[in-house]
C-alpha cells in the first residue's frame, strides 16, 4: 500500500467513523441518561433517510433548509414518542424495554412498507456538492462525502459545547450520573428527559438524511447501523459523548483497514475491538457524562 492509498483509506475511516458518531451519540444520550435500551434507534436512522427521500421534491435546490426541516420534524416526532411510549419505561426492567422498542421497530418497518413501499430509492446530492476531487491517478473523492464529514464535525462540536459549556448540558450530565439528586434539586426531570430523547431521535434522523445521498434508501437499513452503534456506545462508555466520538473513529479505522488487510475476518474486527476494550476497561473508555 503506497502513501496516497494509505491516506485515502485514513480519510475513508474518519469519514465512516464520523457518520457513525452521529447515530451513536443519540443512542448514548438516551441509553446513558435515561437508562432505556432503545432498539428502535436504528429505525430513526432509517426514518431520517426516508425523510430525505420524501422531502426532496419539496426542497428542490434547498438542501440545508431540508436538513433543518427534517431534523425539526424528527425532534417533534421524538418528543411525542417519548410522551406516548418511552415515559412509561423508565421504571421498568430492561427486558420490557427491549420488548417494547423491538415492537416499535416492527411498527416502523411496516408503516414504511405501507407508506413508501419496499423499493430501493436513490437521493440526489445537491448540485453544489455533486462534483468530485481527484485523488491519485485513478480515484476521485466525492465532494459530498467531505461535506458529510464536515457536517458531522460541526454537529459533534455543537454537542460538545452544549453538553460541557451550558447549564442545560450540566443538567444532562448530572442526570446521567445521579438522577435522584437532580430531581431533588428541583429540576423538571420529565421535561429534561423528553428533550434529551427528542435530541437523540433528531441526531439519528439527521445522520440518516446526511447518509441518504451517499448510499441509498432501502428497507431494513437501520438494522446494521443499530448494532454498530451499540458497539460504539459500549466501547466509548455508556452516556459519554466524548467516548462515543473516540469509539466511532476507532471503529471506522478497524472496519476500514480490516476490510483491506484481513478480508476474511472483516466481519468480526469491531467485535474483537470491543472485547479488547472491555477486558482493559470494563466500563468503556470514558466515564458517564464525560
Amino acid at each position: 500500500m503506497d502513501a496516497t492509498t494509505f491516506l485515502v483509506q485514513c480519510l475513508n475511516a474518519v469519514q465512516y467513523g464520523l457518520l457513525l458518531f452521529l447515530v451513536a451519540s443519540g443512542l448514548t444520550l438516551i441509553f446513558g441518561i435515561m437508562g432505556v435500551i432503545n432498539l428502535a434507534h436504528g429505525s430513526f436512522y432509517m426514518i431520517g433517510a426516508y425523510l430525505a427521500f420524501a422531502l426532496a421534491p419539496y426542497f428542490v435546490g434547498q438542501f440545508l433548509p431540508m436538513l433543518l426541516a427534517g431534523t425539526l420534524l424528527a425532534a417533534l416526532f421524538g418528543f411525542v414518542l417519548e410522551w406516548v411510549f418511552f415515559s412509561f419505561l423508565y421504571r421498568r426492567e430492561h427486558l420490557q424495554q427491549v420488548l417494547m422498542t423491538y415492537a416499535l421497530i416492527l411498527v416502523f418497518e411496516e408503516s414504511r412498507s405501507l407508506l413508501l413501499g419496499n423499493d430501493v430509492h436513490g437521493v440526489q446530492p445537491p448540485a453544489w456538492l455533486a462534483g468530485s476531487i481527484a485523488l491519485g491517478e485513478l480515484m476521485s473523492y466525492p465532494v459530498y462525502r467531505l461535506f458529510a464529514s464536515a457536517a458531522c464535525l460541526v454537529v459533534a462540536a455543537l454537542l460538545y459545547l452544549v453538553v460541557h459549556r451550558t447549564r442545560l448540558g450540566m443538567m444532562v450530565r448530572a442526570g446521567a450520573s445521579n438522577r435522584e439528586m437532580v430531581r431533588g434539586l428541583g429540576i423538571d426531570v420529565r421535561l429534561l428527559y423528553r428533550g434529551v430523547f427528542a435530541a437523540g431521535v433528531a441526531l439519528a434522523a439527521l445522520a440518516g438524511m446526511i447518509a441518504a445521498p451517499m448510499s441509498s434508501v432501502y428497507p431494513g437499513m437501520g438494522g446494521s447501523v443499530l448494532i454498530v452503534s451499540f458497539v460504539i456506545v459500549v466501547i466509548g462508555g455508556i452516556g459519554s459523548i466524548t467516548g462515543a466520538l473516540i469509539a466511532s473513529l476507532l471503529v471506522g479505522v478497524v472496519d476500514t483497514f480490516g476490510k483491506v488487510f484481513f478480508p476474511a475476518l472483516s466481519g468480526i474486527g469491531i467485535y474483537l475491538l470491543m472485547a479488547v476494550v472491555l477486558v482493559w476497561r470494563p466500563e468503556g473508555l470514558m466515564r458517564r457524562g464525560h
Partner: protein
Amino acid sequence: MHLIKLSATAALATTLALSTAMSMVVPGEAHAQAAAGPVKVGFMLPYTGTYASLGNMIEAGFKLYVQEQGGKLGGREIQYFKVDDESEPSKATDNVNKLIKRDQVDVLVGTVHSGVALGMAKAAKESNTLLIVPNAGADAITGPLCSPNIVRSSFSNWQPGYSTGVVVAQKGHKRAMTITWNYAAGSETVKGFTEAFEKAGGKVVKDLNLPFPNVEFQALLTEIAAQKPDAVFAFFAGGGAVKFVKDYAAAGLDKTIPLYGSGFLTDGTLEAQGAAAQGLQTTLHYADNLDTPRNNAFRKSFALAYKANADVYAVQGYDAAQILAAGLAAVKGDLSKREALTTAMRKTTVDSPRGRFTLSAAGNPVQDMYLREAKGTNNEFKAVAVKALADPARGCKL
C-alpha cells in the same frame, strides 16, 4: 408508490384466483373421487419482507400460465395453498411441513431465498414431494441435493457468474478483481466468473468481500483503485447493488475500470441507481426487451392480467407452471404415475418467454445467457453471451 399499486394488484388477483379455485372444489365430490379432484399446488414464497415483491411476481407468473390454459393442467383443476416463508431459513422446515403434512400438497413451488430453498429441498427429498424452485440459485439444489422430484425453473448461481466471465474475457480484459458479500450466492457466482475468466486466459488478481449485508464499500473501492485491474466483477442485489453502483461511479472508477456484474446488479434497481448505472453490462437468462413473439405475447398477457410489467421473476414463475403442465399432460393428470410424471417434467422443452430451454440431468435449465446493457430503467438485450449454458451440477449423481 408504483410498488404499492403493483403488490396490491397482485394481491387482489391472487385472492380472486384463489377464491375461484376454491369454489370449484365441491367437498363431497372431491372426497368421493380423489383422483379427479384438483391438483394441490403449494406456494412457499416470501410474502412479507424485502423479497415480498419477488414472491408476488412468481405467483402471478405461475397463475397466469394456468389461467391461459383455462385453469386446468393435464385436465385437472389446480387448487392453491400459500405459506409465507419470510425468507427465514430457520423456519424453513416448519413452513414446508405445513404444506407437505397439513395441506398434503402434490407439488411444492418455492422459493426466493437460497437458505430457505435448501431446507425445502431436503424436506422434499425426504418426503418425496415434487418441488419446483422458481428462483433460489443455490448450486447445491441441482448439485449434491439433486433428486428426481426436484427441478428448477430459474438458474444456478454459477450460471450468470460463468457467462459474465466469458464476456469479460472476450472484451480482452486480462486482470480482474471480484467483489461481493461473503455469503453463498455471492461466492458461488464469483466462482462461476473465475472459472470462465481464467479458462479463457484471464487472471483474477484479488477477491474482495464484506460481510452480508454491510454496505460500507469505500475502503474496498480505494483498494480497487490501488490495484488498477482491467475490470471488476460484482455480485450484489437490492439495496446493496444500488449503493455499490452509485459509490463506484462517485469514486470515479466507472470512467477508468469497467464494471461488470451478474444481472442482479441492475435488476429492479435501475430507477434508484439513476445515471450511475447507465451503460452497465450484465448477463442473465432474461432481458426486459427481448424482442421475440413469445416474450412480447407473454408481456402483453401479463400486463393485461395484472396492470403491471412482467420481470424475470414473473418469467420464472410462469415457466415453473409450464414444467408442471408438461408432466401432468404426459400422465393425463394421473399423479399416481409418478415416474412417468417426473420423467416428462425433466424431458420437456420449455417454450419460455426467455427463449426455449431444456432441463439438465440434474434438473437445472440449460439456457441461453444474455448480455444486457442498462438503458433508462430497462436492461436491454445486446447479444447472446453463451448459448445453452448448462450448470456443471457438481456433486449430483443423476
